[in-house]
């Protein structure tokens, strides 16, 4: 399972941890073919071209993301680098037969920080539904607390000082072939059928270890 520190590859288009048709009928093979095969691939390819011959060449994705965020006044490589990172993180946030309520420590923490799983579900749902335009919704960890965050375009919680644990892509390309304008249906489907709580738990362990 990828923790945030592991997504530092030298700009490789890693395949998702499942076959492109494995998330059917919740997320179609066609969507994965375009979303991973075209969109994600383009971010990786364009990043390689973009950093060639610059001081960013050979640096990790994390490094590029942190150094091009520039307090929101984004430098050119930010978009491709962050989107490459975000998409790899997104595939690994999902699994066939996923979704529903987690158990154990993760459930306890969700209940601690959101009062109940249902309240977390509502909040995550609302963040994903109300991110206007392109962006992402996240479950993130900071200062020993779980929280829901929404970000525009390519921005992710790394640059906001938190550890990402779970994400949903709400750019229209993520859901348009399967759901058209019906983003709320897509979000519910993701929550009920796709979330990999194993990945989230592993990331949480890594985040706690990293915070010391």
């Amino acid at each position, binding site marked *: 399972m990828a923790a945030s520190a592991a997504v530092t590859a030298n700009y490789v288009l890693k395949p998702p941890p499942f076959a492109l048709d494995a998330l059917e009928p919740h997320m179609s093979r066609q969507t994965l073919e375009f979303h991973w095969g075209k969109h994600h691939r383009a971010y990786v390819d364009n990043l390689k071209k973009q950093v060639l011959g610059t001081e960013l060449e050979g640096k990790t994705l994390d490094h590029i993301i942190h150094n091009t965020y520039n307090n929101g006044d984004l430098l050119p490589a930010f978009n491709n680098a962050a989107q490459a990172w975000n998409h790899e993180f997104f595939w690994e946030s999902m699994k066939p037969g996923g979704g529903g309520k987690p158990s154990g420590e993760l459930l306890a923490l969700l209940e601690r920080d959101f009062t109940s799983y249902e309240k977390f579900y509502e909040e995550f749902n609302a963040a994903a539904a109300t991110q206007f*335009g*392109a962006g992402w919704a996240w479950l993130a960890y900071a200062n020993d607390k779980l929280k829901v965050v929404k970000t525009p375009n390519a921005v992710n919680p790394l640059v906001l000082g938190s550890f990402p644990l779970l994400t949903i892509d709400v750019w229209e390309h993520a859901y348009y072939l399967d759901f058209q304008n019906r983003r709320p249906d897509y979000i519910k489907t993701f929550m009920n059928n796709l979330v990999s709580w194993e990945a989230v738990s592993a990331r949480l362990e890594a985040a706690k270890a990293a915070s010391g």
Partner: protein
Amino acid sequence: MMRIVVSIIFIVIFAASLDAGGKKTMDPRGKETMDPCLESMKTASLPDLPYPYDALEPAISEEIMRLHHQKHHQAYVTQYNKALGNLRSAMAAGDHSSVVKLQSVIKFNGGGHVNHAIFWKNLAPVHEGGGKPPHDPLSSAIDAHFGSLEGLIQKMNAEGAAVQGSGWVWFGLDKELKRLVVETTANQDPLVTKGSLLVPLIGIDVWEHAYYPQYKNARAEYLKNIWSVINWKYAEDIFDKHTRDLDID
């Protein structure tokens, strides 16, 4: 900050002027609002498309036109009217904090309504002049500013392709500087947010919903093809209207 508030007020007034359909409403307590100015505030309504849903094929598919008009534009109208209702209540109550907080949802949805209302008029079926190049005086003005019509189109397409996330690419008239411009805006920001004296002549929606079912990730191909249904007559009319008193070459 003031500029944003002024722009938003401009958007609200402009959007409300786009359509008929004023409704008297009650405030939450069942009383008519006291201020007649607030009471007469008109809500937005979805304008009809000036052509059938399949009329822009093959450049833009019927499926896209139906979704784009009946779902996306309709949602902006609905959410905008809801926000206006909330704004009316907040203003009546003197709840300034809420008035300010509502600005972003008004900008998103009101901007969406304003932009799409222009967009449908920016397009026309081929047999109604879609794609037919403009003539003078707009044509000469384009040549003067961009070298040629092809030059303008190339610039629009390059800027439209480069928009990261959601937004629009615009061909506009800058009344202050008396020249033609190509600009992009993010999300549903109308062109006026880039300059209060900018007048949109042609806007092209580069949100993914504008092209995804047909073109998927190939935004550049959508941009290339849309010119075959661009309604230059509309651009000419707006240009003529606004340059009557300006000395523009």
